[in-house]
């Protein structure tokens, strides 16, 4: 019996083990998401309310003229669809940061962090798991939008948008992870909703083109231009129409790297985010 329960040599943690580890984290996050039906439904209802009610209501008042990537006049609901896709990812990124605060309080974060895989890898894997879930949400939303007759120019574009969703999901997830390192306790999360999610969403190009904002308030337009969320929206919008928008790409990639590096820094064992509670 003795040889079976403990052994002297450990497995070297090479690329194969890391791959197993990453898969396990993504698998667990997806299972958890499927078990939380309410979370799935609310993640879907939110953008649908915007699409079916808000956009339909504003259809007459807010016409959108021809701006790239559109080559014709578009209905307002068509315009805001990419913004709503990005909104799903924004909420999801914040939700996974909420789950990190929760995990930290409940101990499952400690489970994760006693893995022999490097900590930066574990945090990145957790991030990728969250992005996978957000992409599932976006595609479910697109299926419903399809029946509302909101479709990209070609079937092919359902694929071209995928890399953009991955990138913008990573950016939002990394931002959420950074926020989670700054939040001491779960209760503070309501503040994040009010002071982070809503301003980010409204002060962006998700609901109205920037040139229109510029006409109304140059000051607000500047805020929108400084908001990384705007670039996630535009990257998604162009990709949904089979086009590549280099500036958005650079901003999104740059912000992802910066947010993730800061989050990994904050979660470093010697830095003490995790010791705040003292337990």
């Amino acid at each position, binding site marked *: 019996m003795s040889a079976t329960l403990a052994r002297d*040599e450990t497995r070297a943690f090479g690329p*194969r083990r890391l791959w*197993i580890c990453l898969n396990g984290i993504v698998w667990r996050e997806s299972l958890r998401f499927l078990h939380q039906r309410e979370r799935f439904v609310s993640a879907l209802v939110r953008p649908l309310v915007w699409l079916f009610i808000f956009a339909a209501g504003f259809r007459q008042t807010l016409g959108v003229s021809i701006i790239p990537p559109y080559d014709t006049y578009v209905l307002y609901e068509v315009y805001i669809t990419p913004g709503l896709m990005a909104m799903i990812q924004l909420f999801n990124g914040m939700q996974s940061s909420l789950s990190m605060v929760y995990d930290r309080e409940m*101990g499952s974060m400690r489970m994760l962090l006693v893995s*022999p895989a490097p900590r930066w890898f574990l945090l990145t894997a957790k991030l990728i798991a969250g992005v996978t879930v957000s992409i599932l949400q976006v595609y479910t939303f697109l299926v419903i939008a399809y029946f509302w007759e909101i479709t990209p120019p070609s079937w092919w574009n359902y694929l071209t948008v995928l890399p953009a969703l991955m990138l913008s999901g990573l950016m939002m997830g990394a931002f959420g992870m950074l926020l989670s390192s700054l939040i001491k306790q779960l209760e503070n999360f309501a503040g994040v909703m009010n002071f982070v999610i809503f301003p980010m969403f409204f002060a962006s190009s998700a609901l109205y083109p920037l040139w229109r904002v510029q006409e109304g308030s140059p000051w607000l337009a500047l805020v929108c231009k400084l908001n990384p969320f705007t670039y996630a929206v535009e990257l998604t919008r162009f990709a949904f129409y089979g086009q590549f928008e280099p500036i958005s790409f650079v901003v999104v990639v740059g912000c992802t790297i910066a947010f993730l590096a800061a989050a990994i820094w904050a979660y470093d064992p010697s830095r003490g985010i995790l010791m705040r509670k*003292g337990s």
Partner: protein
Amino acid sequence: MSADVDALTVEHVTHAYGARVALDDVSFAVAPSSFCVLLGLNGAGKSTLFSVITHLYAARSGRVRIFGHDVARESGPALARLGVVFQSRTLDPDLSVEQNLAYHGALQGMTRGERRERQKILLERVGLADRARDKARHLSGGQMRRIEIARALLHQPKLVLLDEPTAGLDIKSRADILSIVRDLARDDGVGVLWTTHLVDEIRAEDHVVVLHKGKLRGDDSCAAIVAQSGAAGIGEAFTKLTGAPALAGEIEA
């Protein structure tokens, strides 16, 4: 690994939260294949020490080694040799027992085949082989603990840490868990660090480390600590060493 390397070495570990000193120059070692009790009341610094050993965060100063591997500098090889049962429940209640074990196996980089083989042995060992497909939320507190012990052993660690594993359990569950873990140290060559505030979980031959208000107050076999302090039992010895009353559960360990 040569036999003379300790399973766990804690060397001059000091840690503070702001001005509050939680650990003050704590040093001790746990030998392979031994059952070591870390005894201290709530607030003694046990949880802080636990967090430092598991590399949740780094101590302000001092060093922790697991089979010679520095937890801060070589955390991969150190953590690969370590199994942990945390004080708070860390099974995912919505997942089945098997799914919980699969997640942990993946975190340890185990293939499905490796994990299944180990899972079979371990669930039998903790007497829950027939519960693999049940959701964790349908288990009793004692059963969850036993699953957590099986999980901690999944990757065949040579050192196992348990943070107050009997907290909140009934008498029979406590005794069952204690006996499973004692067998591990005796039969399987696993070094065990068992954290508790209850003196009745200690046997005369156990290695006991007494921690009080962040300071080490005793580090020897239970029998030696009792003899040195001139007390009648470990409970009285604890009181003499710390000035605080010892707590007992209600089991014969």
